[in-house]
């Protein structure tokens, strides 16, 4: 009979109380594992997704993704002249708002206008190298509505190679299906760039972004050279208010806010008058005219938004920078997860402290007897803290195991939407964290008990 067995027998002697404390801690650890696996999964997806980019992407400064970027087509020849640039692929992006009559909300779907000739010359081409059915876009597909889509889109809309389907009001013909295995990038319908220009209304003078294949081992040097090339030029920063929907001359968020403003001021919900679209731009087109911000609104004009400084007029991103950008975007998510976990853990700690206090109170005579039989203060402390530590360890193991199971379940049910990742490190940390938590929770009752004189304890009982 060792101290450990004694601690176990004490916990087992009050099964209901111990089970409740265990339940509280287990639920908290399940929550912790699940919440942090969301963040870890996001980071992992990001690493996997952008780790596949061998080249760099050139976009409008500040644009979070190519969809919201717009660059002059004329800059393409300048980028191509940069030393180390092997292949330059112009891209045009548009959001797929409606597929087969179904509004696309989440996950979002994008129409990616590919320059077929240059894309097929890339050493490593995303999507093209991930084809699982049919064929990729070829020269014969220029100007057509033939498309290559992801497996997740095909499954969502029950499409097979050869099928025809309607996206944003245009009938497309499915010729190939790809699967990158990353929900973060398996979002695109690939079409010839000229067809996407027609669909989005983006003229030949603009592109969304450029994909650059640099010479081997020169990715960083090429990135820097492109930035240098455009350093000192007028910079047009991307702003969230640049968001427009096709066929609409105004920003939908802006319009909604104006309508709400009108409702509050005049008591009625009035439509906002459509304004002339400056150049028939589609989604992601930067504002070209300050007037579209609405009369009386103190929005920066186009001239105000043009600023000349020592910055560069283009944003050049490598895979690492994409990853860092997403990490930056998820930092707030990390904090939120920590707060939520903190709440759950606090409840669990209070549960354990309560359990151990009740346990110590109920066993106060027992503690007096142990001290009367020569148990030292440290022995009593070790026993009680050990019992709560045991609760923590078991709760941690249960929570980590169940939490891991939950992430696996979620991953299998929504495999094309989310990938949670409960890493071995996270699971081990959860177990260690729960054990330390249990130990610390038991310290207060343990210290209280160890300080009692034996007869004080026996009399209190």
């Amino acid at each position, binding site marked *: 009979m060792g101290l450990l067995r004694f601690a176990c027998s004490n916990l087992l002697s009050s099964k209901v109380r111990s089970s409740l404390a265990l339940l509280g801690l287990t639920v908290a650890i399940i929550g912790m594992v699940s919440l942090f696996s969301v963040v870890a999964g996001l980071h992992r997806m990001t690493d996997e997704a952008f780790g596949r980019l061998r080249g760099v992407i050139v976009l409008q400064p500040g644009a979070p993704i190519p969809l919201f970027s717009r660059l002059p087509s004329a800059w393409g020849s300048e980028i191509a002249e940069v030393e180390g640039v092997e292949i330059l692929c112009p891209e045009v992006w548009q959001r797929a708002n409606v597929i087969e009559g179904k509004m696309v909300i989440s996950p979002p779907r994008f129409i990616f206008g590919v320059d077929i000739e240059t894309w097929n010359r890339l050493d490593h081409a995303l999507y093209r190298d991930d084809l699982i059915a049919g064929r990729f876009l070829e020269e014969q597909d220029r100007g057509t509505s033939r498309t290559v889509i992801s497996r997740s889109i095909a499954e969502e809309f029950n499409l097979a190679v050869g099928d025809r389907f309607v996206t944003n009001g245009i009938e497309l013909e499915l010729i190939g299906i790809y699967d990158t295995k990353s929900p973060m990038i398996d979002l695109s319908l690939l079409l010839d760039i000229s067809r996407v220009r027609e669909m989005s209304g983006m003229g030949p003078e603009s592109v969304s972004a450029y994909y650059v294949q640099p010479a081997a081992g020169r990715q960083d040097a090429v990135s820097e050279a492109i930035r240098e090339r455009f350093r000192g030029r007028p910079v047009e920063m991307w702003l969230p208010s640049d968001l427009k929907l096709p066929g609409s001359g105004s920003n939908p968020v802006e319009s909604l806010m104006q309508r709400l403003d009108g409702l509050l001021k005049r008591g009625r919900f009035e439509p906002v008058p459509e304004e002339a679209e400056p150049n028939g731009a589609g989604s992601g087109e930067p504002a070209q005219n300050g007037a579209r911000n609405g009369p009386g609104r103190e929005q920066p004009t186009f001239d105000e938004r043009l600023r000349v400084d020592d910055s560069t007029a283009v944003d050049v991103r490598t895979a690492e920078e994409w990853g860092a950008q997403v990490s930056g975007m998820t930092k707030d998510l990390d904090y939120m997860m920590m707060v939520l976990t903190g709440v759950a853990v606090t409840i669990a700690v209070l549960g354990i402290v309560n359990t151990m206090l009740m346990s110590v109170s109920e066993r106060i005579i027992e503690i007096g007897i142990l001290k009367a039989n*020569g148990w030292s203060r440290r022995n009593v402390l070790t026993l009680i803290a050990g019992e709560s530590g045991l609760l923590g360890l078991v709760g941690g193991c249960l929570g980590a195991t169940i939490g891991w199971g939950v992430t696996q379940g979620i991953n299998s049910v929504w495999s094309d939407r989310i990938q949670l990742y409960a890493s071995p490190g996270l699971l081990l940390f959860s177990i260690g964290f729960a054990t330390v938590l249990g130990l610390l929770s038991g310290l207060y009752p343990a210290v209280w008990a160890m300080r009692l004189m034996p007869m004080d304890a026996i009399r209190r009982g």
Partner: protein
Amino acid sequence: MDQSADHLPACNVLRAEGIRKIHPRGETEVAALRGVDCAFVENTFNFILGPSGSGKSSLLYLLGALDQPTSGTIWFRERALSSLSPAECDRYRREEVGFIFQSFNLLKTLTALDNVLVPFLPQGISRELRERAVELLREVGLGHRLDHRPSQLSGGEQQRVAIARALLKDPKLVLADEPTGELDTATGAEVFRYLRTLHRQSRATVIVVTHDRRYLEAGDRLMHLRDGEVEREEIL
């Protein structure tokens, strides 16, 4: 009886000087002991006799360092218990004192054998210690009840387990607080018989608190307490 500590014989294992113990009871205070001086000679079997509320149990707890006196000093050999650090006090209880309670005070989740071994659980149980515990339980007639829990034992059996527990550490002092208080006469006599036998074997100093005169012939000395003071002492 001469109650002056200065004149106590040199072979006293335990002596108390001017012990006072006051228990707070709400806003009032109850004096359990009002200046007790006494001494206990090594390897003797002593009784403390007195009516309820005379302070005999309070004195026993103080002698065993289970409680602290309000004032006065208790000497174990040449060391004042009040000068002991908490760790030394724990060691005193662990190594020098075996305590037997009126209500047995066994741990309900443990078997008879484990209850006997309880003082040594934190240090780990050696095979020799376990064998000694089994031997002690056999000596008190519980060789067949080693794996029984307290709820499966009679009052007399529980008290015999408590006696074995007190003696396992081979203490210099065995302090028993009304060990037959919850037992019938026959069982009480049996418990005293074991206690006396084990005392002869261990040569510990035994101090038994009781208000029952039936077992007094088993002892060497008797101290009468009344109203928290030593009334008189007798050699039996």
